[in-house]
């Protein structure tokens, strides 16, 4: 029996184990999930380790100033491993601080330049909408009302003064209600798209199982022919 045939059998069996969830939560499904977690984590750690080694080792072997620049993160990485020992875990705080600090800065600049500014600009201006005629104007207005409304849907604070509170409910409250409808429209569309994508994958897997079983029967001569 070839390695490909064994692989086909293993793949088919694992697919069936996962699909057994359709009958409800059961030990076979739980077995498949633990296999999935173990295999994925082992693979991920191996790929990460080798990638970092390939990046770091050439710099360490050379006599250039790069050597010192690479030694600092390696030292921080080793300090991070102290987090695994409660008694020494404070030594790992420097590495976590670097990760959190750099991560926060990347997140701030990323959300500002990659999400907030482009998404606000994408709502468009009156000139952009008018370029698309009356349909463009209506679509632009719907887009703007929906975006502002969706933002207002997350406004949970309210002023304490009764007059301002009434005004708040009449403006932000109503805007938030309209925004909730747009959010549901978005969630519904995302649901439909996710369902379509996962159905495509599911059909692919079921087809692979059917073809796999056919090939196994043919190769092992279990078909009786």
């Amino acid at each position, binding site marked *: 029996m070839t390695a490909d045939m064994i692989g086909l059998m293993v793949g088919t069996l694992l697919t069936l184990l996962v699909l057994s969830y359709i009958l409800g939560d059961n030990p076979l499904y739980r077995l498949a999930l633990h*296999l999935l977690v173990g295999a994925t984590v082992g693979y991920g750690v191996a790929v990460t380790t080798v990638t970092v080694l390939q990046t770091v080792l050439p710099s360490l072997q050379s006599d250039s100033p790069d050597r010192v620049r690479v030694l600092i993160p390696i030292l921080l990485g080793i300090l991070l491993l102290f987090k695994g020992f409660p008694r020494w875990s404070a030594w790992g705080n420097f590495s976590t601080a*670097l990760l959190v600090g750099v991560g926060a800065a990347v997140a701030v600049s990323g*959300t500002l330049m990659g999400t907030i500014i482009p998404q606000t600009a994408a709502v468009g201006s009156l000139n952009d909408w008018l370029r698309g005629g009356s349909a463009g104007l209506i679509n632009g207005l719907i887009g703007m009302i929906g975006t502002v409304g969706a933002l207002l849907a997350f406004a949970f604070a309210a002023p304490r003064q009764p007059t301002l509170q009434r005004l708040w409910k009449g403006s932000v409250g109503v805007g938030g209600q309209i925004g909730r409808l747009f959010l549901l429209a*978005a969630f*519904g569309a995302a649901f439909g798209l996710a369902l379509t994508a996962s159905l495509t994958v599911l059909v692919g897997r079921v087809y692979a199982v059917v073809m796999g079983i056919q090939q196994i029967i043919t190769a092992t001569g279990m078909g009786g022919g």
Partner: protein
Amino acid sequence: MDRLMKRILPTSVAVGTGLLVLLGYLLPVPPLPSVRDELIRWAVIVAAFAFILGFFNLLRVHSGRARKPGGIYSVILILTALTSLALTLAALLIPSLRFIGDWWFRSVLSPLQATVAGLVAFVLAVAAFRLLRHRREAGVLVFMVAALIVLLGTLPLPTPAGNWLVSLRTWWINVPAMAGMRGLLIGVGLGALLVGLRVLIGSDRPYSD
């Protein structure tokens, strides 16, 4: 000394590196961009160590569970993780053993991951059914209409109904759904911005234990 090690020095590192990276993005004046790139490179290398630490933590947690009832799953997880690590390392470090890594990926990882992704369809359908059964309100109706428009618009139906549904689906995704998603994205962005700024001014210190 304890306060210095646990609070003052880590906060200085986080605020200092964070501000340097942020300045590197906002003011691309030399040498700030190169300092930014270097710090990000350091963070990537340290993150790899964090991944390794997470792996050992997973092994430790599951070796503790292995002795409890139902521990057979934890034993299987540990064995699979170690096998996967060994096979993938061997395949990546020794070119002649690459076929083993390919076999593992093609026969074990790929079928498992693809089938779990496919199972999402089943879970989503069950969730929609439960939603319809337990919550009958206007919001649910909008949600279901949106989902139906997207699903029906994907079907290859004959013209003219098919063309009309495709146009409706495209309009729905590009206008009302996009508006809702854009509002959500801007809201999430504002939240992330606020959390990031709190870390950068040292108001939040998730690294001090």
